[in-house]
């Protein structure tokens, strides 16, 4: 059983690596266009050790995590609060709708000039870009979740004496919205982490996974670029695992109700 699971988990990455190696060997065979997985593997290991000047991956990861944490935590807090309110209170939802929906599609990169204007070339400016990316998925998932809470729970709470809106929010809407909120957190975390590249494009610091991808591109080293992409992927995976664990802990009560377990 354990072994079968391991094999399952490894199936797609192995297939992907195989496909990539074959694609490289058959169609590309050109080291400045694409690096084969074997090459990337070696580069990845070397970059971890910091033996290549300017490219010490663990340090870059730390910087990126710092940007991510700052931007994402603010996005989560504000997205959650506004999402719950917007989901439950229709007039509030309406009053923020237009602004949110016009600002939402504007991509994080497009905010770089504003970020520089507001925060200069600081880590906060990077965090701001990440905030922009993560805020809307959290907000949208939370507000959709909050407005989809089953009526019967709210009505039950009301007749049990929860007459204040704050009580309904705290004791019914929030727990019932938790699954959607946590999906939002996972999607938002993904987008936030994605934004590190954009957030590190404009000179906020000389470290960061995103900054180094750009540098790698300048140096035309596909192996470095792909190694950094992988590193972003791996850190992203770890972050996702953390959120999933949290989700499982908080949503224990759903285990017996739903068909599969979310993962």
């Amino acid at each position, binding site marked *: 059983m354990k072994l079968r699971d391991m094999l399952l988990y490894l199936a797609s990455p192995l297939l992907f690596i195989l496909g990539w190696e074959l694609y490289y060997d058959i169609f590309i065979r050109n*080291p*400045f266009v694409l690096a084969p997985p074997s090459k990337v593997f070696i580069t990845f290991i070397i970059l971890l050790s910091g033996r290549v000047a300017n490219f010490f991956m663990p340090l870059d990861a730390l910087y990126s995590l710092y940007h991510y944490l700052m931007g994402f935590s603010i996005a989560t807090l504000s997205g959650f609060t506004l999402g719950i309110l917007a989901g439950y209170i229709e007039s509030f939802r309406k009053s923020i709708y237009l602004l949110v929906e016009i600002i939402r599609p504007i991509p994080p990169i497009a905010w770089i000039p504003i970020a520089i204007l507001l925060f200069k070339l600081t880590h906060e400016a990077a965090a701001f870009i990440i905030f922009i990316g993560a805020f809307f998925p959290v907000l949208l998932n939370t507000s959709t979740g909050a407005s989809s809470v089953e009526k019967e729970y709210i009505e039950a709470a009301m007749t049990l004496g929860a007459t204040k809106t704050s009580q309904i929010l705290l004791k019914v809407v929030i727990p019932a919205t938790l699954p959607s909120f946590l999906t939002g957190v996972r999607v938002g975390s993904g987008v936030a982490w994605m934004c590190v590249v954009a957030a590190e494009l404009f000179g906020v610091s000389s470290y960061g996974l995103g900054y180094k991808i750009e540098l790698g*591109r300048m140096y*035309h080293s596909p192996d470095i670029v792909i190694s950094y992409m992988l590193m972003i992927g791996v850190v992203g995976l770890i972050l996702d695992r953390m959120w999933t664990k949290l989700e499982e802990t908080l949503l224990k009560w759903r285990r017996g109700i739903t068909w599969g377990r979310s993962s």
Partner: protein
Amino acid sequence: FSAGKKAIKQIPVSCQPSWHHTAIYLIKEKGWDVKILGVNITLTVFPSGPPQMEAFGAGQHVIAYVGATPPLPLLAKGMDAKIVAVANTEGSSIIAVPEFQYTGPSSLEGKTIMTYPPGSIQYTVLMKWLTDNGVNVSKVNVKSGGPAEILEALRAKAVDLGFAPDPTPYNAVVNGYGKIVISSKDMVPGHPCCVVLMRGDFIRENKEVAVKFLALHIIAEEYISDPRNKEEVVSLLVKYLGISREVAENFPGTTNFQTDPRNKNWLNGMDLLCDELYKLGITKDSNGNPVRLAPKDIVDSALYGEALKLVPQIKKELGLP
């Protein structure tokens, strides 16, 4: 596009929205490609060097107007291409926020300057200039960014200075949030800037077209350098680059439209760049071993010589003096 032996149907060329590349815009605008080469040039404009070289490396263009350094890592890995002509030299300036008190290189100490990342021409020029003038570079805070970020950072006073190629500095000047304090021609005289890069198979299989193209390049650069054509060039830049006439009026700025790849001074500059990239670990062969390129490995000046011979005749065909 196929660079086969058969007659080519079009020539895919790439460049950037910089006035260092005005020559290729002029050739297109005037239709010289069809007139002289008999085929259409398709022009792709990239915002920066990396994607431009990624496309070039993947074989999507045969000629690129590009900075001198972006191709070097690819050439080190053995890309089949050569620098066949110079597009320009010099042509960058340091811009400061208006209240900055510039008193020479040492006034940069303790200040923040934004320029292209390490390995770029601007970065290299800046470092050489500072070091040559005895400034401790570790005391200068250097931030990385492209032209847009440089302007935005200046506007927001997020940096004290920026170092960017024309026409970016004039944007800051014209709009009143920056002033030019020194130009690159006064920092490292004659330093290389942009080049014309051509694919090897194209040179070998379509030599005649390649030479004719180079001749056109030489003629176009002469044409834009001629002050009598300034008004026409300004309109061209407004049209192709979308910049304001006010900014375009500053053409050619400090840009020097020199084309000869045999120029000693230029070759020395290239050698310096090769060394710089080698030291930064940017140029490596396909096995990852550091490569110290030399101008002779990357420049093919034979083609230029042949092109020069064609210039008078083509000029006549185009009705130019």
